[in-house]
């Protein structure tokens, strides 16, 4: 493991001794994790290992059985978080226009109208939105809908952003576009991000740090820093460093899934 040691003050998120079981079957039994402020952490692991469970607990959507999840000492209730769900179709509100979907969390925060509009304009510029936000979500393409979801999650200027397989329902080209746009904005704003992904290449390309999880009961198979230069485009995918990293991850993954110890 070359996972970076993180001083407590640099951690945006600290998980200690996390426990969670479903119907007596443990998913986590004593799980620790620190996420450095401003980092994009990709979480990669087999189906059902508890990736969604982890970020749902971190986002306060699912109660923990034991342990603590703290944001600089605070409970998630006192922290602004953003969440992008895998299924954009079921996450956006179809009775609201796209723009009102983005305004929704800002209204919940009780921001004045002028500030809400200013943020909306800023996000539009940030993401170079060229489609009509006065449309209803179901009138937009899948990529546009997921982009609206991302804008909605970022509108509150979250301290931590959670993304649960945000691209898995999109086609290849849209995924590449959205990925590039997202890394650009996240790095520029320095948002601490937890990204769950099923795509190893994507996890490496988007992350500062990659966490590989094992099958249940879930432990960390590997935790590695991804020190590739930003921005990372399609050329990055063929760089020797990237290829070496990917090879190593594949070996770890195969070993973890087969249940064999990882050769160093």
């Amino acid at each position, binding site marked *: 493991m070359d996972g970076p040691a993180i001083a407590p003050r640099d951690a945006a998120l600290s998980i200690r001794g996390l426990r969670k079981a479903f119907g007596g079957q443990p998913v986590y039994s004593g799980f620790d994790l620190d996420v450095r402020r401003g980092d994009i952490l990709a979480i990669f692991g087999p189906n059902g290992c508890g990736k969604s469970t982890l970020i*749902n607990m971190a*986002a*306060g*959507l699912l109660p923990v059985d034991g342990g603590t999840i703290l944001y600089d000492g605070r409970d998630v209730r006192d922290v602004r*978080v*953003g*969440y992008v*769900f895998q*299924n954009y*179709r*079921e*996450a*956006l*509100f*179809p*009775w609201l226009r796209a723009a009102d979907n983005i305004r*929704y*969390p800002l209204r*919940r*925060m009780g921001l004045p109208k002028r500030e809400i509009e200013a943020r909306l304009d800023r996000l539009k510029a940030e993401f170079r939105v060229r489609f009509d936000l006065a449309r*209803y*979500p*179901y009138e937009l393409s899948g990529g546009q809908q997921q982009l609206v979801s991302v804008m*909605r999650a970022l509108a*509150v200027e979250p301290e931590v952003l959670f993304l649960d397989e945000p691209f898995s329902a999109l086609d290849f080209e849209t995924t590449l576009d959205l990925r590039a746009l997202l890394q650009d904005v996240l790095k520029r704003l320095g948002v601490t991000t937890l990204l769950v992904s099923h795509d190893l290449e994507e996890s490496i390309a988007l992350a500062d740090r990659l966490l590989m999880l094992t099958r249940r009961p879930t432990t960390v198979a590997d935790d590695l820093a991804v020190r590739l230069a930003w921005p990372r485009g399609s050329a990055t995918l063929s760089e020797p460093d990237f290829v070496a990293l990917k090879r190593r991850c594949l070996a770890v993954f195969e070993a973890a899934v087969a249940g064999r110890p990882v050769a160093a």
Partner: protein
Amino acid sequence: MKGLVAPVLGAVGFIGLWWLATVAQLADPVLLPSPAETFRDTVAAFRSGPLGHDLLRTILRTVQAFLIATAIGVPLGIALGAKERVYRSVEFVVDFFRSTPASALFPLFLILFGVGEGTKIAVAAFGAALVILFNAAYGVMNARRTRVLAARVMGAGEARILWDVLLWEALPQILVGMRAGISLALVIVVVAEMFIGSTDGLGQRVIVAQSLFESGLMYGVIFLAGALGYVLNLTFLLAEKRFVHWSGR
């Protein structure tokens, strides 16, 4: 407008067959008057008779029953749907009375409300309220879980989620329930007008026309009741299309 051609052809065909049957004298003219005679008698009953008043009374009763049913069924259904465990505990009672023919309840309501206007409206409201309640509760219970979570993560409390998410998620189903409810209210009102001491209303007019052998008028009133049900249903269908554009999205 193209969509209108087929139904109009169907209606014309139906009247044509009817007319042929009377020309061929397939049935006793007292049992089956011609379309023209039916039309003539019905218009006459509108002009100089009580039919306009009857139609108005039936509409009024149906709408009153429907409004009461909605005022009770929608909020109660939403509240029960939001507390699924509570709904499960009353589900049997709701299902049972929803399955009970409302006409079997007439005697009970007669005891409760006496022989009068109130009874007809109360039975119809009772029947319609159960249908509306049932649909509203299911609409809320079937709300997309992800949307509820999305609202929660954006800082909405339980009350906010009910108002901002569950209500909207349930609205398509609520309107379906209201459509079924108003149709049922009309059915119950017409039957009640026949059997619970009435002096007016379409149900009353059908029974009277039948007993006086005014078969032209009788058929006319039946069609009128049918047209009323059809228009009510259509109004709600159009309202659903217009106001819940996100239905099923």
